[in-house]
Every structure is written in C-alpha cells, then in structure tokens.
C-alpha cells in the first residue's frame, strides 16, 4: 500500500471501510497507524532540523528514521524496514553521535550551530519534497499491493528484484560507494601531507591515526 493509496483511502473516508472488514487489524487500522506514524515521523524530522541542541537533533533523527522503518513495515516491506534500522539507526546515527561527542556536544543550546541559510534550506527542502511527492504519486498511482498472494516485500522477492532486474544500478551504486571510500582516504591523507610535509615515511597505522586526528580537526573547525 503506497502513500498515495493511503492518502486516497483516507480521502474516501475510513469509517465505512472499517465497518465492512472487521478484523483484528483491519486495513483501516493499518491505514490509521500508517498516518499516525507518518505524522510522528514528520514531526520528528521537523524537530531534527529546527532544534538548537545538537545531540537532540541526532536523537530526533533516530525517531524519524525509526518511524520510516515502521512505515516500511506497514507497507509489507519487511526486509527494507530491518535494513533501515540496521544501517541508519544502528550505524549511521551511532557514527553521527560518535562524531558529535568526539568534537563538540554541549548539553543545552548551541546557538552558533545555526547557519544563516535557513530560508534557502527551507526552499530546497520544499522543492525536493514536492518533486518526490509528485514523482512517487504519479508513478505508483494505480499500484496496489496484493495482500492475498505472496508478500511482495519479503527478502526473497526483494533479493530477486534487486539482483535480476536492478543488478546494473546496484553495481553502479557499489562502485560509487567504493569510489567515495577511496576518495575519503585519499583526501584525508593529502590533508595530512599538506599540513605536515616532513612525515612522508609514517607507517600505515600511524597514517590512519593521523587521518583520524585530521578529521577531528576539520570537524572541530566546522
């Protein structure tokens, strides 16, 4: 059940459908849950970008990402949901918090963390959201999830789709990520050589340690 479908169903009125199909968790129940979780997610996302407390922003991001995972679940995309939790909540946010704590994570407000680009950011965000909503709505307007057959979001179905129909984009993404990885390493090493030209014969572990230090410096400057 896509966003558009839910929106449509909600627009049509949920009351009489609930009466039609009574059950433990009727479709209407799912839709109501979907909407509520969506509101929570949206609220958390808004708070994430508006709060003046850095670590709070990261923690609200957890709520937003977790809410997204729940939405995936409600859309029967179980695999995607757990990967979302594993990658974003379990790793990305932890990395984010790690970086924050390593540099500057004061308790309370940090007014200097606010940038003057608020209106521009808002404009970009609204534009991106509008584009996404328009594209997604247009693309999946008539698509319905078949709940009677095999669930379409299972690991098997997702895996088959990913490695049969979408294997080329998948590989392209892999290469992109690898390139990013290599680029990050190269950049960090270059920065070190630029600042300390006399440490060319440092060992690999030494270099890694220095790279970490350099990154910390950069983050501190930011």
């Amino acid at each position, binding site marked *: 059940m896509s966003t558009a479908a839910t929106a449509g169903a909600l627009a049509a009125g949920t009351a009489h459908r609930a009466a039609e199909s009574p059950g433990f968790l009727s479709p209407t129940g799912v839709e109501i849950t979907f909407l509520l979780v969506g509101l929570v997610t949206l609220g958390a996302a808004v708070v994430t970008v508006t709060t003046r407390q850095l670590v709070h922003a990261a923690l609200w991001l957890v709520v937003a990402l977790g809410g997204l995972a729940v939405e995936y679940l409600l859309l029967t995309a179980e695999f995607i949901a757990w990967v979302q939790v*594993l990658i974003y909540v379990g790793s990305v946010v*932890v990395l984010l*918090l790690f970086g924050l*704590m390593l540099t500057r994570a004061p308790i309370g407000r940090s007014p200097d963390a606010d940038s003057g680009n608020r209106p521009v950011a808002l404009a970009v965000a609204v534009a991106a959201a509008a584009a996404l909503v328009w594209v997604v709505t247009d693309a999946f307007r008539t698509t319905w999830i078949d709940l009677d057959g095999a669930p379409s979001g*299972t*690991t098997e179905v997702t895996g088959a789709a990913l490695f049969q129909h979408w294997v080329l984009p998948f590989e392209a993404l892999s290469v992109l990520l690898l390139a990013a990885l290599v680029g990050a390493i190269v950049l960090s090493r270059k920065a070190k050589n630029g600042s300390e030209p006399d440490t060319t014969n440092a060992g690999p572990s030494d270099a890694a340690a220095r790279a970490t230090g350099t990154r910390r410096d950069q983050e501190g400057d930011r």
Partner: protein
Amino acid sequence: MTDVLDVALRLLVVFVVFLTFPLLVGQTEHKVMAHMQGRLGPMYAGGFHGWAQLIADGVKFAQKEDVVPAGADRRIFQLAPAVALLPYLLVLLAIPIGPGEGAVGQVLDAGVFFVLAVMGVGVLGSLMAGWASANKFSLLGGLRTAAQLLAYELPMLLTAASVAMAAGTVSLVGILDAFEWWWLPWQITGALVFFVAGLAELQRPPFDMPVADSEIIFGAYTEYTGLRFALFLLAEYAGIVVLCGLTTVLFLGGWHGPWGADGLGWVWTLLKTAVLAFVVIWLRVSYPRLREDQLQKFAWTLLVPLALAQIALTGVVKVVFL
C-alpha cells in the same frame, strides 16, 4: 479472539523469559565466578546458597534514590535505560526455541536482519546515557561504546550473512530447518567470530573498556543510581541471553540434537544457550580486559578478515559441493 489470545500468550511467555532468564544468568554468574575464584559467593539471601540474591538486589535498587545530576540533560538521561533494555525484549521475540511456529514468539521473514538491527539499537541507550550524564567519564564511556559497536557490528553481520548464505534464507526458523550437523565444522570460524563480536557488543569482559572501572569509573552508567542503573544491568544480562540464544540458533543448530529433536527440541536450545552463557561467564573470569586500541585492532585485523574468509569458504562449499 483466539488470535488475540495467542498473541497475548506469546508476548506473556516472552516477557516472563525476558524477566527471569537474565536473573538466572546473573545468579549463575555470581556463583560460578565466586567458585572460579575460590570463593562461595552469596550464601544468605533466600536461605539456600543465596538463591534470592538478585531479588534482594532488585529490592535494594528499587529503594534507592533516583538521582539525576544537576547538569544532566534530564529527559535523555531518564530515557536512556529504556532504550538500552527494550531492544533485547524485541529480539527475544524472534528467537525460536523449538521446531515449528509454536516455539517462537513471532516468525519473521528477515529474522537475522531483525535481531542484528534491533540489537544495534540497544547501544544507543549507552550513547544517550554517556552524553546526557554531563560527566567526562560518562562521555568517554559513550565514545568507547560507539567505537566498539562500529568495530564489531561488521564481523557480526558478516558471519550472520555466512550462515544465511549456507541456509539460503535470512529467517531464523528457516536457518534452523535447513541445519545439518556438518554445518558445525563448516561454520565454526563464523561461530567463534560471531560470539566474540557479540561479547564485544555487549561490553562483556574481556571487552568491557566502555565500563572499565579502573579507567573511567563505570563509563556511561557512572551517574546512574537505583532502578535506572538496575535496568542497565538487566540489559547487559538480557543481552547475554539474547547473544547466547542467537549463537545457538545460527551456529549450533538450535533445537537439533543427537536425539529427541521432535518433542524435546526446546530442551536442546535451552541447554546450548545455558552452556554458552556459562562460557560467557567463564571468559569474564579468566581474561583481563583488553586495551582500547587492542580491541580495535583485534576487530579490524583479525575478526573482519576471519569473517570474510568464512564467507568465502561458505560460498565455495555452497557452489562447489552443494
């Protein structure tokens, strides 16, 4: 109506297991650790060999004042223990203890992903606690927790992926259904890596740098008192139960056993889990704590390559021999 009853019953059973098994592990740790050190351990609480020591501890924790430091971030400080504890309750839902759908809280299609994902979330609790305590030692503990999680999540995932490759499914129930006895030698490297990485993720000795008392007092939990502190402790022991159960299911064949797999499968699961829990305690007593840099080195230079080698081996065997 029977659906509701069934769900309620399953949830209740899982909840009871969640509340009792960590206490059992904790009590076993008290006694086993004591005897391994030539002591007796608790002997008074409850009368017989101090069996009620942890209940007494719980009562004590409940009576203590719940202190929040003045400089702390109040809400996050208070929320952290729940964030640390709840994921393990959720993970327990997905661990099958016997054959069939009757012996698992909830059959999940992507069970392996679910348990690993949710277990990683529990670390957020430690991070929140470390940051919100407004204490430099807590912050250091939180940092170490994060660094440790980042280092050890990867080998855990890789070895779990190896088993998933072997079984051709990421469902825990499916993995158990596909299990054969010779998987044990086949996946032994993966099992060891998974178990060790799990220990590190739970911050159990010898990987307990985030709570190293001689260096940073008690890490992220330094400022906690009373019931909230008890919740963190409960999370640690629930984590042991979950890790041992998970290792049992993924690598040791869960309810499979030399005999009696039909009716007594759950006994096998519990037995294997108990043995693993004993090993967890045993390791704690036997080894000193690693240094933080040794820990990172251990993860990146030993466990990750081993996990990758295990995946390669699994792939080769899977393609060539099966």
